[in-house]
């Protein structure tokens, strides 16, 4: 990569950090004892997790009849939550793979936690698939395994089966990508370890990393290959999730724009979640020099762009529903906006399309408080988007006598809480035991994007001046 950096570029590491400072700042929370704030936060998520686990256990014990589903709305919070979590799980790989291919240096401070978040979000999504199954102990029937049950075999025509393949592939590749990126940093912690236990565990997971030129060269190859594999995967996952709906013939579900529109929405909500988590992390772990205003602003721009793409898709659907002249389709959309679920529809519109437009103002993009608020608002909006698509399309059956509403029970809510508990428990464990920022990648890009780099700035400037002089002489001659 070119080391010439235009002077008008924003700085990505502030505070005049040296390479050693980076190691110190980021290893601090891994090596130190857990802070009080961490303990409290972790404790709360464990409590939520326990309550959620009880609700999920009860759901499994009693069957999914404990949910508020009825014969018209046969799919509601369960699939809404699933799609919501899968969507959130998009940002990690987008940041680590797509932004790597685009050589975006600002990704280095945020990719580690974004990837971790991705993995946890996909696990949460998977928990809803298991919750769905009714008989979760037979989950392996979703795989095309040789079996002794006669002709029992998965239906390859079903997008739900494509989902199983897409999401399990995505999870595996994301996990490998995340872990690969961790190895050099784990080795750093291993080399600094003070206790026997941490030397053993970090040593075990750093796979004997030596840091030789050859290992780095291999590391670079693997990263690029994984990025190449992950990029189509990012698109495929939500494409296939969208096909769960779009291949059907239900008005409001069957529409061709669904695949790219779902992908854009997923990136949108994923970035919002990364923003939420990082804004908290940067304060609690005092990482303001690494997750700078520039990073926050970049993410806000991505949120605005993807939110607007989603907005165009909403309007396209609405317009074509009218343009097509298909009565069912037109009714479905008018009903969404003005029917009994109008509040959900306008919640979605306000949170997803209107709220990110405030980021057109640079002041708002750079405001930490507003960025945090909007990032939460966006994820609320994205939950409502899925709710609107799913429930508002189903609740008006073809026969008016079958029209129904959906109201969640305690177990709908409890199972949703379970996923939050799971997500935050895992995230806090990650934040404590692993470096939340990719140390060596930050170091790799520091030249040119860090303030006061290198340390002997004055001496360097001298050299530079001489350089330019020589350059001018060369080009004149």
């Amino acid at each position: 990569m070119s080391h010439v950096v235009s002077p008008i570029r924003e700085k990505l590491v502030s505070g005049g950090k040296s390479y050693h400072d980076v190691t110190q700042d980021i290893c601090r929370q891994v090596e130190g004892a857990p802070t009080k704030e961490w303990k409290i936060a972790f404790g709360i998520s464990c409590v939520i997790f326990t309550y959620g686990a009880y609700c999920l256990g009860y759901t499994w014990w009693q069957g999914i009849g404990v949910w508020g589903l009825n014969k018209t709305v046969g799919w509601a919070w369960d699939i809404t939550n699933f799609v919501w979590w899968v969507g959130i799980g998009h940002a990690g790989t987008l940041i680590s793979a797509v932004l790597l291919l685009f050589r975006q240096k600002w990704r280095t401070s945020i990719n580690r936690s974004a990837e971790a978040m991705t993995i946890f979000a996909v696990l949460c999504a998977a928990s809803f698939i298991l919750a769905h199954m009714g008989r979760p102990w037979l989950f392996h029937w979703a795989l095309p395994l040789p079996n002794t049950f006669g002709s029992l075999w998965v239906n390859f025509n079903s997008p739900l089966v494509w989902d199983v393949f897409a999401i399990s592939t995505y999870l595996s590749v994301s996990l490998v990508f995340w872990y690969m990126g961790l190895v050099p940093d784990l080795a750093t912690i291993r080399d600094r370890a003070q206790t026997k236990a941490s030397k053993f565990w970090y040593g075990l997971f750093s796979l004997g990393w030596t840091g030789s030129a050859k290992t780095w060269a291999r590391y670079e190859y693997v990263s690029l290959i994984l990025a190449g594999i992950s990029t189509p995967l990012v698109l495929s996952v939500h494409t296939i999730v969208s096909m769960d709906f779009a291949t059907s013939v239900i008005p409001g579900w069957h529409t061709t724009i669904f695949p790219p529109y779902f992908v854009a929405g997923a990136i949108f909500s994923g970035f919002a979640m990364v923003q939420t988590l990082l804004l908290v992390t940067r304060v609690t772990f005092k990482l303001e020099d690494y997750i700078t205003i520039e990073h926050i602003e970049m993410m806000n721009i991505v949120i605005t762009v993807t939110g607007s793409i989603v907005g165009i898709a909403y309007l396209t659907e609405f317009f074509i529903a009218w343009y097509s002249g298909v009565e069912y389709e037109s009714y479905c959309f008018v009903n969404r906006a003005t029917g009994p679920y109008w509040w959900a529809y306008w919640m979605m519109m306000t949170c997803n399309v209107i709220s990110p437009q405030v980021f057109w103002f640079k002041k708002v993009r750079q405001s930490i408080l507003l960025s945090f608020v909007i990032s939460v608002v966006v994820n609320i909006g994205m939950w409502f988007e899925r709710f609107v698509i799913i429930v508002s399309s189903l609740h008006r059956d073809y026969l008016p006598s079958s029209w129904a509403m959906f109201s969640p029970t305690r177990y709908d809510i409890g199972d949703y809480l379970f996923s939050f508990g799971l997500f935050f428990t895992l995230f806090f464990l990650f934040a404590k035991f692993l470096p939340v920022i990719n140390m060596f990648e930050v170091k790799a890009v520091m030249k040119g994007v860090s303030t006061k780099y290198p340390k002997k700035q004055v001496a360097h400037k001298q050299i530079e001046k001489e350089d330019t002089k020589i350059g001018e002489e060369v080009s004149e001659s």
Partner: protein
Amino acid sequence: MAGHSHFSPANVEEYFEFTAEGRKKVLTALVIGIVVLGVGIYMLMNGNHEEAHAVAGHAAEHGGHAAEHGKEMLSGGAASHHETAWDPLNRLWANLWLNGVYFSGIAVIGMFFVSIQYLSKAGWSSVVKRIPEAFPKFLLFTAPLLIGLFIFKGDVIFHWMHEGVTVKGTEHYDKIIAGKSGYLNFTFFLVRMVLIFAAWIGLWFMMRKKSIEEDLIGGTENFTSMVKLGTGFIVAMGISSSLSAWDWVMSIDTHWFSTMFGWYMFSSWHVTGLAVITLTVLLLQDKGYMQYVNANHLHDLGKFMFAFSIFWTYVWFAQFLLIYYANFSEETIYFLERWEGHNKIYKATEILNVFFNFFFPFLVMMSRDAKRTPIFLKICCFFVIVGHYLDFYQMIMPGTVGDHGGYGLVEFGTIIVFASAFIYVVSHELTKASLIAKNHPFLEEALHHDI
């Protein structure tokens, strides 16, 4: 801040010279195109159907049976009403429309590319940005052409402009089309069309002015205003890309609809624009210009072509799959018409569409070395440019000329005319500014680009 530069960007300036010899070549091509087109029209007018079709080799399949068969497989295009009084010149108007839309796309993607580079603050592309920046000039020619065609020959292209289709009680009344007349009517359509072109040309004009001014005065002020203009254009394009796709192309098959269509057509334009940018850079390098563009820049252009070929395929396939899977007759008719309808004259195009636009670019551009080697890039550009002409051909022709389509002298003549006009206009526009934006604040990054 810049590391060890031995290069002072301010010393660089390079002007493209559109030589007399070059002009002569392009104009000769233009004349040849006009002659071919003239002969093609003459043959059409004299009912020499078979010869006009000869290239596609479908002459043998003509007959009364085929015409009836064709009628069943229509998605509401203008062609469905032409069986009684077919004017051979219609094929000329359809061809002009096709090329007008296709080349407008290439031209506007030039502006889109530059805008994206500014919005994302990309450094590497600052060495090539003057090339796409010249493209939108061609809009000054396609805009009046398309607007004129719409005003005077709109009923040839658009079924919804036929007389009486929206008037209840008349012979040709069509309930579905009547339902769309709030959007598809002469005035509103024209207003949209004019606004779209005005936005594209207006924003380009402002951008171009700022860009050339930057060469003279330097500083970063122009850069900042170009970021703003680029952002404005992206917003305008976000809306106008879908509108233009619905209006100019989707409404040809008036009954049919697809929410994906806006992005589908845009992705087709986009990858074609990238291929034309790449090809222009390579051809200029062959002439000895732009030697500062190295394998790394080409690599990036190649990656773009590769990635957006796949993106086009993704959009194309998703649209096809969802329609195929749901199997609603009012949606599947679109593909059926192209596959089975009109004596199957469009079937070969459908197959080539996927081969030219997916398999070939995918396989040719797969390796790193290929993306850094001019000849491979040129091969890929060829497939993409021809392939997406075919893509637009199959979007526009079945609905406008139906059974009377084919690949004849009219088609080849029109392409030659448009291509040479495009080359002439862009070459002329390239002479108006240095090929390198010497005061671009990221230029030094680009000159040291190394991946």
